[in-house]
C-alpha cells in the first residue's frame, strides 16, 4: 500500500474541501478501497475519512412515503430495516445476496454505489487496463472474459459494475443526493455510472470532491412491494458476484400488468434498466409469453464481448424467471439463500 495522508473531517464542507484536491479518495468502511490499495490499484495521496460526518448514517422516511437513505448506512442495517423490508423488499433481498455478513456489517450504501469493477485485469497491475491506466489497452478482450459485459461495452473496456444493491435501486428510480464544491445537486442513479466508450477511466458523473450524501427512493417504488424480486445467478450460491442478476417488480390490476420495473446486473458497466421491456409489459396480461417477450426486448442490443455469449440467453432466462417469481408474490420471509434460484424451502434441507 502506498503512503498517504489521513484526514478525518467533521463536516461535509471540510471533507469536500480536502477531497477536491487531486489524488484524494474518500474512505467510508474501506472494504473496497483498502482491497484496491493493497493491490496497488488505488494509490491515493490523501485519504479523507468520512465516517464521522454527522447525519449520514440514518434512514429517514419522507412525508411522501419515500425513503432517504444516508450514504453511511451499513448494508446490513439497510437490509434488516423493517420499513425497507416492507416497502422495498427487493432492496433487502439484493443486499443479502451480496458479499458476506462481515462485509455487509461494514460496507456502506455510498460505497456500494462507487465500488469498482471486479474485472481481474483491472485488479492486476501487470495487465493492460484502460480503466486503471488510460491508453494501456484491455487485456480482458483476449483474456478470461466469460463473465464480462454483454451490454453497453466498448473495445476500450468490457468490465461490469458488480453491485447487487444498484439493480433494484435503478429500477425503483433511486436519486443520488450529492454535495460538492459547487453546492448540493442530485442525479438519477441511472445516470451516475458512465458507459465506457473511449474513456472507461471516467466511471461516474461525480466531479472532484463531490460526495454522495444519500440515496432517495421515491414512494412509487412501494407500489411494487407485493410483487418484487431479485434473482441472482452465481458460480457458487453464496458470497459470489453475479454472473447475471435481475430485478423484476410488478403492480397488477387483476391479470393485467399496470406497472413494471426491470433491471439487470452483471451485464454492463452500470446497473442496466430495461425500459423498453417495461413498456412492453405495462398494459399486457401477466403470462409466460409476455415475460419471454419482455426478456427478448431487454437483451435486444446485447452482444458478446468475448467468451460470454451464454450470458445473453442466461440474462433472458433470469429476467423471465424474476418476472415469474414477482408474479407469484414477494415471500413474507426471505429464503435462507437470498436471491438464489437454488434456494431450498426453509427448514426442508438436509440436516446439519
Amino acid at each position, binding site marked *: 500500500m502506498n503512503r498517504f495522508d489521513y484526514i478525518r473531517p467533521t463536516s461535509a464542507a471540510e471533507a469536500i474541501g480536502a477531497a477536491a484536491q487531486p489524488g484524494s479518495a474518500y*474512505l467510508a468502511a474501506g472494504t473496497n478501497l483498502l482491497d484496491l490499495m493493497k493491490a496497488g490499484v488505488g494509490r491515493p495521496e490523501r485519504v479523507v475519512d468520512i465516517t464521522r460526518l454527522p447525519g449520514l448514517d440514518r434512514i429517514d422516511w419522507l412525508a411522501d412515503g419515500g425513503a432517504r437513505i444516508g450514504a453511511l448506512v451499513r448494508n446490513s442495517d439497510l437490509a434488516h430495516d423493517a420499513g425497507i423490508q416492507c416497502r422495498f423488499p427487493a432492496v433487502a433481498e439484493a443486499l443479502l445476496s451480496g458479499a458476506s455478513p462481515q462485509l455487509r456489517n*461494514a460496507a456502506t450504501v455510498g460505497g456500494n454505489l462507487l465500488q469498482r469493477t471486479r474485472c481481474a485485469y483491472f485488479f492486476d497491475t501487470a495487465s493492460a487496463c484502460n480503466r486503471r491506466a488510460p491508453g494501456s489497452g484491455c487485456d480482458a478482450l483476449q483474456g478470461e472474459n466469460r463473465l464480462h459485459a454483454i451490454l453497453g461495452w466498448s473495445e476500450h473496456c468490457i468490465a461490469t459494475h458488480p453491485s447487487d444493491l444498484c439493480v433494484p435501486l435503478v429500477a425503483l428510480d433511486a436519486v443520488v443526493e450529492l454535495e460538492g464544491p459547487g453546492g448540493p445537486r442530485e442525479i438519477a442513479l441511472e445516470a451516475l455510472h458512465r458507459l465506457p466508450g473511449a474513456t472507461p477511466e471516467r466511471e461516474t458523473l461525480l466531479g472532484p470532491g463531490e460526495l454522495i450524501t444519500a440515496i432517495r427512493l421515491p414512494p412509487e417504488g412501494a407500489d411494487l412491494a407485493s410483487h418484487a424480486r431479485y434473482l441472482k445467478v452465481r458460480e457458487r450460491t453464496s458470497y459470489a458476484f453475479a454472473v447475471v442478476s435481475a430485478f423484476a417488480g410488478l403492480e397488477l390490476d387483476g391479470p393485467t400488468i399496470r406497472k413494471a420495473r426491470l433491471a439487470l446486473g452483471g451485464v454492463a458497466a452500470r446497473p442496466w434498466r430495461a425500459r423498453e421491456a417495461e413498456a412492453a409489459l405495462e398494459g399486457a396480461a401477466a403470462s409466460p409469453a409476455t415475460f419471454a417477450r419482455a426478456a427478448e426486448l431487454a437483451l435486444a442490443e446485447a452482444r458478446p464481448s468475448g467468451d460470454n455469449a451464454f450470458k445473453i440467453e442466461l440474462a433472458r432466462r433470469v429476467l423471465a424467471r424474476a418476472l415469474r417469481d414477482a408474479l407469484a408474490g414477494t415471500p413474507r420471509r426471505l429464503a435462507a439463500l437470498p436471491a438464489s434460484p437454488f434456494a431450498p424451502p*426453509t427448514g426442508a434441507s438436509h440436516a*446439519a
Partner: protein
Amino acid sequence: MSLSLSLNINGRPRAIDIDDPRITLLDLLRERLALTGAKKGCDRGQCGACTVLVDGRRINACLALAVSLDGAEVTTIEGLADGERLHPVQAAFIRHDGFQCGFCTPGQIMSAVGLLAEGHAGADPERIRELMSGNLCRCGAYRGITQAILDAHHALAGAAQEDAA
C-alpha cells in the same frame, strides 16, 4: 505522521500511538498488541480468518484502517472466555469438533458469536451455513462448525430462558 487513537480492546481501554495510517486493525492487533488470535489468511476480506467484533458487530479486521476506528470497542477471540470458563460458542466448537488445523477457528468462532447476536438464523442450519459463508475452512470442517453453532444457539437460548425465570 503520528496518530493517536483510543480503543477498548477486550474490555480494556488502550491509548495507542501509531506512526502510519496504513495499519489495519488486523495488523494493529497482531503486530503491535500481541493479540495473534485473529489470523491473517487472505488479507483481502475473502477468507474471514481475521473476523473480530467491532462495537458488537463482526467485521473483517484486514479491511479496516485502525485509525478510522478510533473510539471503538473491539472484541477478539482472546476476550471471549471468562477466565478459564469458555464462551458457549468455544465450548460447542470443541464438543462438535468444529475444526481440524485450527487456523480459521478464531475467525469462525468470532463470526459465529456475531451471527448469534444478529439473531437472523434461528435454528435453521441452511441459514447458519449461508450466514457463515464469509468464513472459509480449508480443512472442510463445516459440518462440525454448523453443528456447533446450532448447539450454541440452543445453549444460549436456554440460558436466556433460565435468566428470565
